[in-house]
C-alpha cells in the first residue's frame, strides 16, 4: 500500500482539527460576547475566588491568580481613561467571520471624550500573516452631538468615508480639549468679573457678552468658535462683535469700529486669556 492512501486520511484529519479549533474559538467568542455580569457579581466572585485561592495556595504551586490579573488590568484601564480623557461607557462586539487567517468583528462603542459624547460602529478586519497581525477598519459610522459646529459634521463625514478611526480619536480628543479650555476660560472670567461678563448660553456656549452698567445699550460680544479641518486639526477662532447704541458720537464710533482689529492683534501678541483680560479691563473702565 502506498502512502497516498494514508495522505487522504491525514489531510482530512488536519482539516478537521482546524475546523474544530475554529468552531471552539467561535463558541468561546459568542459565549463571551453574549454574557454579561454586573460589577456586583464580579466583586462577589473576586471575594469568593480570593478565599478559594488562599486555600489552594497553602498546598502546592498557586494557580493563575485571576483576581490579581483583573486588578492589574483595571488599574491600566483606569489610568488610560484618566490620561487620555477618553472614557468608554459601553462596548460590544460580534464575530461576523472567522477563518484560519481572517477575523471580522463588528464593534459598537460609546463613551465620551473630555465629556463630549460619541457613539461608534465599525467593522474590524484582522488578518494574520506570518507573525504580524494587520488590522483594517471598514463601515465606520460615527455619531457626535449634532449641536456642535457644522465643521465638525464635515469632519465626521470625511472621517467616516475614509474609515479613519485613529484620526477621529486623535482629532476629537484635541477638539474636546479645546472646548474644555474654552469652558474653563469663560467660567474663570465670569467668576472674576461677575457684573460684566454674561454667559447667555451657559458654559457650553461659544460666546460671552460684556455689559457695563454705566454704558447702557453698549455690548461687546466675544465669539470663540472651533474650526476643525478635514485633516483633523482644531483651530480656535475668536472674534469681537461690538453692539453700540445709535446716539454714539463719530469719534467713539471710529474707535469701536477699530476694536475687532485691535482684539485680533492682541490675540496674536498675548494669547487668548490676556487679550480677553485686557479687553474686559478696558471695557469696565470705559465711561
Amino acid at each position, binding site marked *: 500500500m502506498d502512502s497516498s492512501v494514508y495522505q487522504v*486520511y491525514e489531510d482530512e*484529519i488536519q482539516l478537521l482539527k482546524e475546523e474544530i479549533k475554529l468552531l471552539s474559538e467561535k463558541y468561546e467568542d459568542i459565549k463571551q460576547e453574549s454574557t454579561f455580569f454586573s460589577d456586583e457579581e464580579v466583586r462577589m466572585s473576586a471575594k469568593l475566588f480570593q478565599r478559594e485561592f488562599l486555600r489552594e495556595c497553602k498546598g502546592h504551586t498557586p494557580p493563575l491568580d485571576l483576581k490579581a490579573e483583573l486588578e492589574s488590568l483595571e488599574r491600566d484601564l483606569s489610568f*488610560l481613561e484618566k490620561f487620555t480623557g477618553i472614557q468608554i461607557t459601553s462596548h460590544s462586539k460580534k464575530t461576523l467571520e472567522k477563518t484560519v487567517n481572517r477575523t471580522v468583528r463588528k464593534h459598537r462603542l460609546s463613551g465620551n471624550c473630555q465629556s463630549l459624547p460619541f457613539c461608534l460602529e465599525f467593522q474590524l478586519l484582522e488578518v494574520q500573516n506570518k507573525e504580524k497581525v494587520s488590522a483594517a477598519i471598514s463601515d465606520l459610522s460615527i455619531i457626535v452631538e449634532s449641536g456642535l459646529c457644522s465643521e465638525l459634521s464635515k469632519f465626521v463625514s470625511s472621517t467616516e468615508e475614509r474609515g*479613519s478611526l485613529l484620526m477621529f480619536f486623535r482629532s476629537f480628543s484635541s477638539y474636546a480639549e479645546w472646548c474644555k479650555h474654552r469652558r474653563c476660560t469663560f467660567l474663570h472670567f465670569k467668576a472674576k468679573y461677575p457684573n460684566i461678563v454674561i454667559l447667555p448660553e451657559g458654559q457650553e456656549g461659544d460666546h460671552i457678552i460684556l455689559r457695563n452698567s454705566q454704558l447702557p445699550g453698549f455690548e461687546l460680544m466675544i465669539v470663540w468658535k472651533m474650526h476643525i479641518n478635514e485633516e483633523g486639526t482644531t483651530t480656535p477662532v475668536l472674534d469681537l462683535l461690538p453692539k453700540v447704541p445709535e446716539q454714539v458720537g463719530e469719534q467713539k464710533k471710529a474707535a469701536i469700529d477699530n476694536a475687532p482689529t485691535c482684539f485680533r492683534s492682541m490675540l496674536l501678541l498675548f494669547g487668548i486669556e490676556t487679550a480677553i483680560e485686557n479687553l474686559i479691563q478696558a471695557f469696565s473702565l470705559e465711561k
Partner: protein
Amino acid sequence: MEEGRNSDEKKTALCGRSLTAASQDGGGRMSAVPLAQGKVEGGKVYSGDGVLGYLEMLEAQAHELGLKQEEKEQQEKKLNRLKAKVQELRTRRDELRAKVELQEKRLLDKEGVVTDPARPSAQTVLEWKVKSIKAMLQVFYLTGISGKLTKQGICFCISTAYEGTYLDSYYVDLLIKPEVKIQRHSVPIFIPLEQIAKKYLQTDIRRFLSVLSDHLNAYVGRRHQADQLEEHFSDRIEGTLQRNSLCNLLVFNYTVSSDSKTFPFNVRLLYRDLCCSLPTEAIISCTPGTLSLLAKVAAAHSNTFRQMALHKAFDSIINAKESQD
C-alpha cells in the same frame, strides 16, 4: 568438505529460491537459464540434496510470507487507526457545530443576554471580566495611545494608521521617579525624539505623546503612500522610486504623452512639515527645452501632488492622461 559443498549448494539453492520467488511473483515465469543445479519441478528449483534444501526453501518462503503478512496487518491497523481518528474528529466537529448553531439561534430568539442556566462559578465570572477588560484595552490601541503601568512608570504604545489601515506601533517606556525620563523606546532614529522630549516631557506628558504621535503618524503615512505607489504603479514609473529613511524626500520619473510624443517627467516631492503627510513642494522637471510646451501640464501635476495622497494623485494623473489620449 561435505559442509562446504552443502553450504555452496545451499547458497546456490538460496539464489535459486529467491529467483524462483521473484519469478513466481512476476507471474510464474521461469528464468530461461537454470541457475541452480538440480531438478526443476513444478516451478520450484531445489538442490540435488532434495529434502533439506526443499525444507530450507519452504522456510524462507514462509518467513517472507510472514513478513508480508505482518506488514499488511500493520498497514491495516494504521488505516483503521486513521479511520477511527477521522470518525472521532468528525463527531467532535459535528457536536461543536450543533453547539454553535444553538448559541446563534438563542441569540436571535432572545436578542441580547443569554444567561447560563447553571449558576456560573467565581472563576467563570472573573475570566469573563478579564477578557472583557482586555477587549476594552484593545480598543484603546485603536485610539492611538494605549499603555501599561509598570513598576517604575508607564510603558506607552503609540499606534499609527493611514486612513483605515493600522500600521506599525511604537513603544516609549517611561520612568516617572525622580523625574520623567525615557528608559526605552522603539522610535526610529530619524524621528526627532530627543527634541520633542526636551520640549515637552517634563511639563506635559500628554502633549509630548501627542506631538510624537503626530510625527510618527505622518512618517508612517508618507511611507505607506510611497509603498502603495510602488505596489500599484511600478509599471508606470521609469526606474525605481527613490526615498530617504524619513520618507520626506521622494523622487521618481514617469512619462507624459502629448500629441503622440512621450516626454519624461521627473518629480521631486519635499515634505518640509514633518507632521504632515502631504508634500509642501512638488517640483516637476522635464528635459530642457520641452518645459514651455508642457508648462501647463507640469503645473497641474504639481498641484495634484501637493493636494492629494501620492498614490491617489498619481492614479488621477494617469487616468486623466488616458482620457485625454
